[in-house]
């Protein structure tokens, strides 16, 4: 395809994986393809101000030109999808996946509405899109099912080397290491505290692990909240099980605090029922943390044999798997080595090359 300028649209431009991916894609288009482009969004977080424009500026304040190609980043329902759907410029939909509403509706009706809206917009854009790009083969399958004629898989642009080298927050690391010195394994889960991530299943498995193997173990649930009700339920659950002192819900953390948690973790446990890609799985591999995960959606494709992927998330099964990882240094080292090898597949060099391939096909 011939691209004059590559403009990206997103419902909310904010720090995080998609925001970083968009900035990297803009850099790539400029450096490799010699193509300029702007970022447009309905909502722009203060920390990203100056790097993006309001989406309604496109075609008005910001003149559209022949040769413009629009990229829409799909993750939730938004008026921005309707906006790009009504434009005449060639459209590429970059599908980061939309959480199925049923995983939210019993907890957060508002969020469920946004999800079902996004799910309905995905096929609506199929007729308009010249190409559907997906983070993972799982997402690409969804694009095909939604009626996209031309599709491709191109992983999210993620600087894993920078992640691995991120400096840990000294204070946070000291606190975590002090707790570790008292004995017991450190479990880690990274992701929004949200019903579809099923952190309560991690707590169940952790309770089984403490009961069967390690009464001194600790669980760190790192990530901001997407559901106040779910957050409170997790806190109440841990308290009722008598393990509140060993389960920490950190809320949003800085990159340094996140690095400190990865440095201190013995294992990353992911029992999420919906992942369009699963960036924390790769982050864990980048930090040399073995992965134990439940086989759902894009998780097996992202882990790719570099972690223990379970078909069942029965608490006893997860606990036994973690026990194997923690108590078997040879297995732990093999998983870390497999993770390091797996990261090659998602290196920025390779994913950038893949994106160039997709955009120039």
């Amino acid at each position: 395809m011939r691209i004059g300028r590559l403009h990206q649209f997103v419902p909310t431009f904010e720090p995080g994986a998609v925001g970083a991916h968009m900035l990297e894609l803009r850099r790539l288009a400029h450096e490799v393809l010699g193509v300029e482009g702007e970022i447009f969004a309905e909502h722009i977080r203060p920390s990203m101000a100056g790097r993006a424009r309001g989406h309604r500026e496109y075609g008005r304040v910001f003149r559209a030109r022949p040769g413009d190609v629009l990229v829409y980043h799909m993750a939730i329902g938004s008026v921005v999808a309707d906006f790009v759907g009504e434009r005449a410029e060639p459209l590429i939909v970059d599908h980061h996946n939309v959480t199925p509403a049923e995983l939210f509706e019993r907890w957060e009706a508002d969020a469920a509405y946004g999800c079902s809206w996004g799910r309905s917009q995905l096929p609506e854009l199929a007729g308009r899109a010249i190409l559907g790009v997906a983070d993972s083969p799982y997402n690409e399958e969804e694009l095909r099912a939604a009626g996209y004629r031309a599709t491709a898989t191109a992983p999210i642009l993620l600087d894993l080397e920078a992640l691995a080298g991120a400096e840990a927050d000294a204070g946070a690391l000291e606190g975590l290491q002090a707790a570790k010195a008292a004995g017991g394994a450190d479990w880690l889960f990274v992701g929004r505290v949200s019903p579809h991530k099923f952190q309560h299943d991690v707590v169940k498995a952790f309770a089984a692990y403490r009961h069967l193997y390690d009464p001194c173990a600790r669980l760190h649930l790192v990530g901001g909240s997407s559901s106040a009700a779910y957050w409170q339920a997790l806190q109440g659950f841990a308290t009722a099980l008598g393990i509140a002192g060993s389960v920490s819900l950190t809320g949003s953390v800085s990159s340094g605090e996140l690095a400190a948690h990865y440095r201190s973790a013995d294992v990353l446990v992911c029992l999420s029922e919906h992942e369009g890609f699963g960036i924390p799985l790769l982050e864990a591999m980048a930090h040399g943390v073995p992965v134990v995960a439940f086989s759902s959606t894009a998780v097996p494709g992202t882990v790719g044999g570099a972690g223990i992927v379970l078909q069942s998330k029965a608490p006893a099964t997860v606990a036994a798997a973690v026990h194997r990882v923690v108590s078997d240094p040879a297995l732990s080292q093999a998983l870390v080595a497999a993770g390091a090898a797996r990261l090659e597949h998602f290196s920025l060099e390779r994913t950038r090359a893949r994106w160039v391939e997709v955009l120039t096909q």
Partner: protein
Amino acid sequence: MSDAIDHPQLLAEIDAEVRRRRESGELPADFERELDLVFARFAPVHAIGDDFAQVLERTEQSTHIDVLAPVASRTPGLGFVKRVIRKGVGWEMRYVAQQVSTFAFGVTRAVRLLAQRVEHLEQSGPGAGGRLLAMARAEAPPVDTAGWAPVVLDAVKGAPGRVVHAECADGALVAHLVEAGVDAYGVDPADQVPPPGLELRVDEAVDHLRAVADASLGAVVLSRCVDLLPLGVLAEMATIVRAKLAPGGVAVVLSSQPGAWTGVAADLAPGRPLHPRTWCQLLGVRGVSTMEVLEAPAEDGGASGAYAVVVRFPG
């Protein structure tokens, strides 16, 4: 990449470890069910399952309306504004909330009374756990588990997990399976001293199956209860069995033909034996599972009236 890790072997070892912990009693059968119940206490009413008692309890807990909205704020001054608003409209909020709470409490109280009446009706009828069932159980013709042992062994050999026989009576079939190297245990409502080395648990079949973790059993063998329990319980049992079986699991039903079942038990039992094809409908998933029906021959070469249904689920 992961050549050094034999994943199938590793997963098999993890499953074996879980089985060992369950067998040793370190992991009680209802441990995971208890975790589910505890979490349900904190989930919104509409996010917990279909357990009536829990739903009612959670609804009752939410009848009180808290008018003291949180006023904390990270924005300077906003907390003060919130406090002023709360103080200003508090009297009206309390007035409305009191009426809504009274109404909600009245509704939940009415539902609880209704539940008590339903429970009373259930107990006055020939229910699954009543006196008549115990009498029917004593009068029902015995299941020829010895005759079916080779069929059951063939069906459950290599099952992807533990094998449970419910109701196992004296555990003869369980003993046969254990001797053949199958990791099997039995469940029966009658309390009896098990032979050495045999694991027999005292419990109702459906209660036990409800309590075990999903996808944790390799095979479920059902006998006796399938001839006696009410149709609704049997249908529920079929659903539970499907949920509790691991991928590649096997369900076996040893039962009597309805036509061959006569006598005192037929009058007293709340349920009747089902046709084998009915079990296929209840247990099987068309196009996904494979089903086999075997008729037991009588001594004269004709049909004895007993049958076995074997349903295999995909791995």
